[in-house]
């Protein structure tokens, strides 16, 4: 009979657990529908050499990292040293996608902070970003030899993400 009085308490605890889980999840981290799909094709001018273009098709046969960035993006600055480290490790080429940026600003930022990118594609109007489902710069994609997106990270890459997720994935993908 006494157990009856515990029912509201039990319900309350269940509610608290649900809320705790819900509140601790980042609503900005959405699962991307692009995972395990072919990376959308594009062919747009490069940042430093506007008369040359870059297309993901040219990376076929390589495991590579696509990083969406912009000079106006504060979180990108935070992420920058991690990207430089990734580039230095030579695990995979890092290609930038300079998203809705001014050419001069972007080049100035790379000159000042170091350039981790093999090259950057210049997405002036953000059209490529839409195809990749970009909604919060920076975003990072790992693309395998067949051109399939294997991993997406939204927000700045932290050293933990780099070491625990990206490095293991890169070495696994390079083996296959």
């Amino acid at each position, binding site marked *: 009979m006494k157990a009856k009085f515990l029912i509201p308490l039990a319900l309350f605890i269940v509610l608290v657990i649900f809320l705790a889980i819900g509140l601790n999840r980042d*609503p900005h981290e959405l699962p991307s*529908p692009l995972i395990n799909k072919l990376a959308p094709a594009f062919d747009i001018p490069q940042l430093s050499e506007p008369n040359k273009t870059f297309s993901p098709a040219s990376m076929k046969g390589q495991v590579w990292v696509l990083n969406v960035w912009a000079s106006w993006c504060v979180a990108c600055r935070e992420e920058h040293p991690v990207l430089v480290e990734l580039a230095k490790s030579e695990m995979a080429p890092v290609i930038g996608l300079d998203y809705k940026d001014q050419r001069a600003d972007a080049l100035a930022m790379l000159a000042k902070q170091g350039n981790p990118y093999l090259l950057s594609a210049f997405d002036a109007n953000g059209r490529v970003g*839409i*195809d990749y*489902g970009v909604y*919060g710069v920076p975003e990072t994609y790992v693309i395998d030899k067949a051109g399939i997106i294997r991993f997406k990270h939204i927000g700045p890459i932290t050293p933990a993400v780099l070491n625990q997720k990206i490095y293991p994935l890169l070495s696994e993908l390079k083996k296959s």
Partner: protein
Amino acid sequence: MKKLLFIMLCTFSLMVCAKDAVPLAEDPLIEQRLISISEEMRCLVCQNESLAGSRSDLANDLRREIRTLIREGKSDDQIRNFMVERYGDFVLYRPPVKPITWILWIGPFVILMIGIAGLFVYLRRRNSRVLNITLSAEDNQKIDALLNNAGKEGRDS
């Protein structure tokens, strides 16, 4: 009064903002379809705003994109697919019914059913308990006395 005026001013200025969030294009028909489609979609930057109402940069770009698709003669479903392919079901305010969203769609009704069943069981149990009690003549006299007293007190106060 001042406070009321202040609130009115605030809400009015909000209305003004909300209006210029939707840039008017040349073609009112396209604009109408754009609004009906984008009102059902979430802006991914400010997630509690619809794509129609958001003033974020991305929402602007996406509205431009949807306008282009409308001009290309795409159907509403095709446009919705275009968005879902890129941003996932999360972009839709009305999630599609599929195994992963079954709990979402059916869950509330299941909980309602459980509640109704619980209430039903409780009421039946209570009714049977009430019916089992039989009153003796003495009990009835006591009750009448109490009721009479209560009536008097009620009139006095």
